[in-house]
């Protein structure tokens, strides 16, 4: 049933938690739509670490061609990519 509220998004929470853990950022700094690449919070090596973490956690694998800047623009975009990979 559609309650009209966002369902708890475990994938997105996992991503936000990982980023905060690795960068020492606070929840105020990292929102679902924070422009990760614009603020250069994560470098590309860390983005790859995040990919490996998410692949392991969700038992999926991200196709190489999905590793584009657009899919890493925000935590939400990364989450959508993971959900697509799990679908």
């Amino acid at each position, binding site marked *: 049933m559609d309650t009209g509220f966002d369902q708890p998004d475990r994938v997105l929470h996992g991503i936000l938690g990982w980023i905060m853990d690795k960068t020492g950022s606070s929840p105020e700094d990292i929102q679902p739509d924070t422009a990760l690449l614009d603020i*250069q919070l994560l*470098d*590309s*090596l*860390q*983005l*790859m670490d995040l*990919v*490996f973490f998410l692949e392991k956690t969700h038992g999926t694998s991200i*196709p*190489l*061609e999905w*590793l*584009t*800047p657009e899919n*890493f623009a925000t935590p939400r975009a990364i989450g959508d990519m993971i959900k697509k990979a799990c679908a």
Partner: protein
Amino acid sequence: MTADFDAFDVVVVGAGPAGSTLAWRLANRGLRVAVVEREHFPRHRVGESLTGTAGQLLRDMGLEDEMTAHGFPVKRGVRVYGPNPRATFDVPIIDIAEDGSHIPNPTWQVRRPEFDAILLKAATDAGAVHICADARSVIMDDARVTGLVIRTADGEDRSLRCRFLADASGFGTFLSKVGVLGVRNKCGFDKQIAFYAHVDGVRRDEGPTSGNTLLYYTKQYHWSWHIPVSDMRTSIGIVVPQDTYRASGLSPEAFYDHQLATLHPELADRSARATRVTEVWTRANYSYEIADFAGPGYAAIGDSHRFLDPIFSFGVWLGLKEAELVDALIAQTLDDLATEGAAIEAFVTTSNRAQAVVTTILDTFWTVPLAFLKLAHFTHKREVAELLAGRIFDPSVDDVEALRLMRQTLQNSRAEDKNHVAA
């Protein structure tokens, strides 16, 4: 008026690395070889960094002592600085031992005027004849190339008869210009412009990696090379889309200096106390390919038939390796013309295979950089290092998983792009 000059087994047009090593090989077989070069040595060229395979080939030619005596910087690897300065990755130069393990296999950075002179001297020491003249046209007998018309310094035209003509004229693309080969087709990276100069006072790493190549890139197709060419001096190149340069409204010198300070923070930091000691050389529209680059009595090698984005320094290696292939082709077919057609087809296939590998690597690096990073830094480090070291000619290269993944990735991402357009 055209006077008959001399007859050779093979005439080579151009005394760059490809032409001189081909002449060296053929002369060592006891064949009569002429190398025709219009420019007086030493002359400046771009292409100062060698792959691991090219270094190995020079050692096999017995030139290690000479390379060492010239004090060319030793290159042990390449470091790539990405858009975020903290995101760097290193690609060591490696060779494969007999047991399949990887061993360091350093190569060199070269000052081209001296390097090209070393190779030409090796060729003439082996018995090749160096003719200082301008290649003007070819002599054909039916569909077969049988000679070359040259114009000497005193303005006289002379003809050189030969049983085989090799075009190693580089950017001059001689056989294409005289109509033996097809025209130059643009391919992919043709809208780029390169600015390069030699610079003193650039900060290097300390220790054994001080001679390594550094590459910086920020946006797609905006990049810079740092190639140490002596203890003091570094070749720094800036490559950008031509539109970026035109929009700047700057002179080449002003644009170059501005890019040193702004293209990448790491580059700016390393070159903060640098002094440019040469003019700024420029080259635009430099990417091209020419189909059907070999036929009865002729073959084009190296840059004389194809030139791609030079970021991974494959250029000199492609020329040296194609010289080796064409040397074998000539040795096999000179006295057995019946096998020439098949040998030429095999040469073209081998060359095209290597060029396709280079194209795949470049396209992956530029269009799916994170995928390239994943393969090169994490999952397929050794395979990517081997490819970048120059092991790209053997048929087994098509089985290398990293390459297969790059091809699949490019195919899928192109398909996705099309879907986006369709949607």
